């Protein structure tokens, strides 16, 4: 496959590409484990069911040889460095397989003092995209089964990784479905927009999958779990649900790297990434800021300029 030469003509990414990436990841993971560069590598192992993969922390060469990369590798693994697996960082440097969107999360976490670059060995993946949900999960990635977020990906290349697995490959002529959906909602009359979100949020059961899977929801005490005072009702009712999702979007504004994991894991199919996208768009327009392209000193809502827009203030 000649991905580089034909990148603009590609209409599908064949399994061979992912196999090559898998090989590269295995080779690198084995190497850094053998050389004791890292204490473990966070990567993907194949799932029992077809078209699935599951995150794993591998600590031995044998396990590392089972690591995979496929369009089923949807998870943003950076979440493990702040939550379930954060303990491992105390033992030493950790390797992590990261797609471009995961790299943005890593950069953000470095910005927020949650990670140190020197504690990580990043095996970047030149990622053509992953499967969406509710689609056919066969070997070949096409316009029909690629995830919505991947259609507008600007980070196919994992900038800032220690090594990159894969060569450049991306699908051509993908319609920006998410941007179009966002534009559609923005164009609705205000009452219709409210109805749209109300309908979606009313389905929310507060399983907190969106929060738990988010690399940036690393608070030990979520504001929404607090009851003195109770800023957001914890009961899954329309009122509390609305408040929760607004607070979530606000807390992620200027930080979210767009991995869209929240939306993927929502068992109720709430299009959560639209909220994140909308906030990102606003901050780009107002302050020319895009989150996670590199570690920075301060996010857009932790700084100011004296001549910031204030046309909305009387």
């Amino acid at each position, binding site marked *: 496959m000649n991905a580089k030469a034909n990148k603009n003509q590609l209409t599908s990414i064949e399994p061979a590409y992912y196999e090559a990436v898998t090989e590269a990841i295995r080779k690198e993971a084995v190497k850094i484990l053998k050389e004791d560069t890292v204490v473990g590598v966070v990567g993907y192992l194949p799932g029992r069911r077809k078209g699935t993969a599951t995150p794993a922390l591998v600590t031995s060469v044998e396990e590392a040889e089972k690591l995979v990369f496929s369009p089923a590798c949807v998870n943003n693994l950076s979440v493990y460095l702040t939550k*379930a697996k954060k303990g491992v960082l105390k033992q030493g440097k950790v390797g992590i397989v990261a797609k471009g969107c995961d790299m943005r999360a890593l950069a953000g976490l470095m910005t927020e003092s949650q990670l140190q670059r020197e504690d990580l060995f990043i095996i970047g993946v030149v990622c053509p995209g992953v499967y969406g949900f509710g689609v056919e999960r066969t070997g070949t990635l096409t316009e029909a089964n690629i995830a919505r977020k991947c259609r507008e990906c600007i980070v196919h290349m994992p900038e800032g990784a220690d090594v990159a697995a894969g060569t450049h490959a991306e699908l051509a002529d993908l319609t920006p479905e998410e941007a179009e959906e966002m534009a559609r909602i923005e164009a609705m009359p205000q009452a219709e927009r409210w109805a749209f979100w109300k309908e979606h949020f009313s389905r929310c059961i*507060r*399983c907190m999958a969106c929060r738990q*899977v988010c690399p940036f929801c690393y608070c030990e005490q979520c504001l929404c779990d607090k009851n003195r005072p109770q800023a957001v009702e914890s009961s899954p009712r329309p009122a509390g649900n609305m408040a929760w999702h607004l607070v979530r979007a606000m807390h992620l504004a200027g930080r979210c790297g767009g991995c869209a994991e929240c939306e993927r894991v929502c068992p109720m199919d709430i299009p959560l990434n639209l909220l994140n996208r909308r906030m990102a768009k606003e901050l780009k327009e107002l302050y020319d800021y895009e989150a996670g392209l590199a570690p920075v000193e301060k996010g857009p809502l932790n700084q100011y300029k004296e001549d910031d827009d204030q046309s909305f203030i009387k």
Partner: protein
Amino acid sequence: MQIITEQNLRNLIDLLVKEAKLVVGPKLSGSVVLYEPLTAGTELTLDALPRRSSKELFFPVCEDILSYKREGGAMKVTDVDRSKFPETVLFGAPPCDAGSPSILDAVMSWDYKDEFYLERRKKSTIVGIACTKGDDACFCRAVGLAPDTENGSDLFLTPLKDGSYACNAVTEKGQALVAAHKNLFAEGAGAEPVPFVDQAVQKLDLVKIKKWLEEHFEDPLWERIADICVGCGACAFICPACHCFDINDEGSTDDGVRRKHWDACGFAKFTNHASGHNPRDVQNKRYRNRIMHKFKYYDDKFGKTLCTGCGRCIRACPVGIDIAEILETINGKAE
């Protein structure tokens, strides 16, 4: 054998709606199918397993227990009027959903009688349907159910190849439902039933698994399989059998509502004590509890397995934790 055509099934729903019954069934809500009140038979959607189980009919996502208000020096408490709970007919629940209340009845009417659950349960009729769909996450056969298990349903429908359904009134409630709408049902031999789908995980020895669990409260397996759990409640919330809840007072200390809502043992704060101590301090201990509760503790207490093999948790897990695979692993170890 009694046969009902698909059209008549939908007509039945229309009639029940007219009778002011609450009719609940799988319905397209946005992009997902959920159990929701049907306003017409045409809304019934039988081609996909609803995302949430039908347990919410008896055990709502959230419900008020009481409301309180400080008046002068006294606190006035107002109860919920449970007599207002409507007569309900649940349509289109496959065995893995229809079977859940009969598992939960045990705990709900145990030392403390959950009046809310029992009142709803008393007022409901379950029209189950044999499952002809299924995917590689399904494993009902492995936990003692099957796509055609009638237990739990009051009336059980079996899809036939000509689009109609064979009906079996399993309980008196079911018989009453048929009797009240006789003209919609016809007596006949019926076409051949639609075949069932093969399941990937078919056979588990639940006794052996339980024994292994008894002996392996501490085991490296827990760390291996459950350390990747991110601690959300998706699996528990969409599970037909999970029934943990939290109680919260919402409003102010002077005026508010006490609410009961779903909770999940996967949440880090689920077992957090007021002292700050948390006996299940790491995620794998929380996940272990999930397995233990389903395949050991509940069986210890009530002689039942707290799982119907619907596979929802497998499909929904953000990180691909696969309970069927775990059970298979334990099954293998227990040999």
